[in-house]
């Protein structure tokens, strides 16, 4: 069932800035969603509209089928973990977490066990009497989560909630957030500009740009089949080249023809192709499908990042576990499935329909 649905939501500010353009999205119950996009893409605006802090200029917001567009934030079964946690600095950990329950006039003997469970959930047992100022960033983050989940929301919104933490702690919290979501079984909607964060935690990702949803799908779908060069560039590093579709399952780029796994386009249609740096294997010039010259090489700990140029001056980014010699011709090998073909200006609907049409075909052939 859809717990949240946005229908034709537009947001225009008084100064004329258009933050959201015809947003339609469906959020299912019990899943982990990410809204991913650069700053100014409208992802936080969507979150604020779902929470009720902001009103859409046009369009409606539905919660479990009911229109909640004009409902007060206080009356929504949705809670938010704010960007810088927004903890109440004049209250201690217990009073912060108990706030929502005290507002509802629940007796203290009922509040205590609920707060205790929530603190246990975020691994802050024994911190009830601490002041907020005595906590580290990661601990404050956990208090903010505990404060939100004691109200038993159906949906938890997290606004760039990990961005203030250092890298190691962020990784740790990613695992923990995912674990908490699984345990609670409620919907999480996580706003982030960090593609790695979105890929590692989400069941489904919405990629946003300029107030539009560019693409949505599972992390693997989005990584493997980016709909356009924005998504391809934003999600991970990519080699993006102009190309031409010769016929189904054959594409031309870098002045060569290659077998590929895409179909359903017009013959000779102009396209863009994407090859992920980690899908390129270094081999000898004779065995390679492409021949390039390595120019720079960076050692990044778990892999080398190599920049190379082919005969047409196209730049290639290669991730390889082994280094290579610079300024020498090397071959690049890749499988047909590693080539991702993107049509120019294709909508997600057409994109999905096209993928389905020839994937069915493949199954029919089986």
């Amino acid at each position, binding site marked *: 069932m859809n717990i949240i649905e946005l229908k034709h939501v537009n947001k225009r500010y008084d100064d004329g800035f258009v933050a959201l353009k015809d947003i339609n999205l469906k959020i299912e119950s019990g899943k982990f969603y990410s809204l991913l996009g650069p700053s100014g893409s409208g992802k936080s605006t969507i979150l604020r509209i779902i*929470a009720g*802090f902001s009103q859409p200029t046009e369009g409606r917001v539905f919660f479990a089928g009911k229109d909640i567009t004009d409902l*007060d*934030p*206080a*009356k929504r079964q*949705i*809670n*938010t973990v*704010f*960007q*810088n946690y*927004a*903890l*109440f*600095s*004049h209250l*201690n950990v*217990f009073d912060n977490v108990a*706030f*929502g329950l005290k*507002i*509802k006039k629940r007796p203290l003997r009922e509040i*205590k*066990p609920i*707060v*205790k469970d929530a*603190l246990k959930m975020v691994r802050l047992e024994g911190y*009830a*009497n601490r002041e907020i100022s005595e906590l580290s960033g990661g601990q404050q983050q956990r208090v903010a989560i505990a*404060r*939100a989940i004691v*109200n038993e929301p159906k949906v938890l919104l997290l606004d760039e909630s990990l961005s203030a933490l250092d890298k190691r702690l962020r990784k740790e919290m990613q695992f923990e957030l995912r674990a908490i979501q699984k345990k609670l079984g409620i919907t999480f909607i996580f706003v982030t500009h960090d593609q790695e964060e979105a890929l590692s935690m989400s069941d489904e990702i919405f990629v946003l740009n300029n107030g539009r949803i560019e693409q949505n799908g599972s992390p693997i779908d989005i990584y493997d089949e980016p709909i356009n060069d924005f998504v391809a560039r934003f999600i991970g590093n990519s080699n993006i080249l102009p190309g031409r579709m010769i016929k189904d399952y054959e594409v031309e780029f870098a002045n060569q023809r290659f077998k590929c796994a895409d179909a359903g386009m017009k013959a000779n249609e102009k396209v863009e192709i994407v090859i992920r740096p980690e899908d390129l294997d270094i081999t000898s010039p004779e065995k390679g499908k492409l021949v390039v010259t390595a120019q720079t090489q960076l050692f990044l700990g778990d892999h080398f990042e190599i920049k190379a140029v082919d005969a047409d001056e196209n730049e290639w980014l290669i991730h390889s576990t082994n280094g290579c010699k610079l300024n020498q011709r090397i071959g690049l090998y890749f499988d047909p499935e590693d080539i991702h073909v993107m049509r120019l200006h294709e909508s997600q609907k057409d994109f999905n329909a096209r993928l389905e049409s020839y994937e069915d075909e493949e199954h029919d052939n089986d």
Partner: protein
Amino acid sequence: MTDKKTRTLFIVPYLLWIILFVILPMLLILWYSLTDSSHHFTLNNFVQFFRNGIFLRMMLNSFWYAFLITLVTLLISYPAAYFLTRVKNSQIWLLLIILPTWINLLLKAYAFIGIFSNGGLFNQFLHLFGIGPVNFLFTDFAFIFVATYIEIPFMILPIYSAIKDINPAVVQASEDLGASRWQTFKYILWPLSWPGVESGIQAIFIPSLSLFMLTRLIGGNRVITLGTAIEEYFMTTMNWNMGATIGVVLIFLMVVVMLITGRKRRRKKVNL
């Protein structure tokens, strides 16, 4: 080492100032209050102060008026300060609020005498409705009105900066957790802006305890406070010892006010 020495030299002017004009005068006042006119040690001044009903009444009077002035100022200033944090051109508004403090206090007091007098602006206005003339000057109302007018900027400024320091997301968090606007104000906004309210109260209540110029000019000697009493003893009856005693009591009252407003709230621990 010489560096350290020069740095200690920087404190010397202020140290001299504070010794000559703060510590020594206070010791002098204490000395006067503990002696009689022939410089013999006595506690008689204090005994007289607390035995004689007039002084206690004056003290209560001072407290009452200072309390009223502070309360009215706070009631006007808090919403105004909140409003200022929400408007676009808050700098211009702030300037407008500070502007009256650039005008000399005496000048403002005389201006109000003009406004409140029987032929003044106030009564002319009331005359339009066929009321009056009403005698405003030399009433409690006039005294509190003018005192409030003068003190308002000193209340608005600290509250304004305290509210401005509150992260707006905190207010949203409170609403998000189900609090109504009133609950958000009561449990979040008010306690978080309390430091500003506190310094506003201290900046107004304490000086208001010893106002004497306004009591004379606007209150017309009907309002008698400890401030007017001190002036009386020093300037008219020349009983410096009694004047100093009232001064000591005032200092003590001020310390009490500071302790009350500045105390840290103890939090009770919960056992989970």
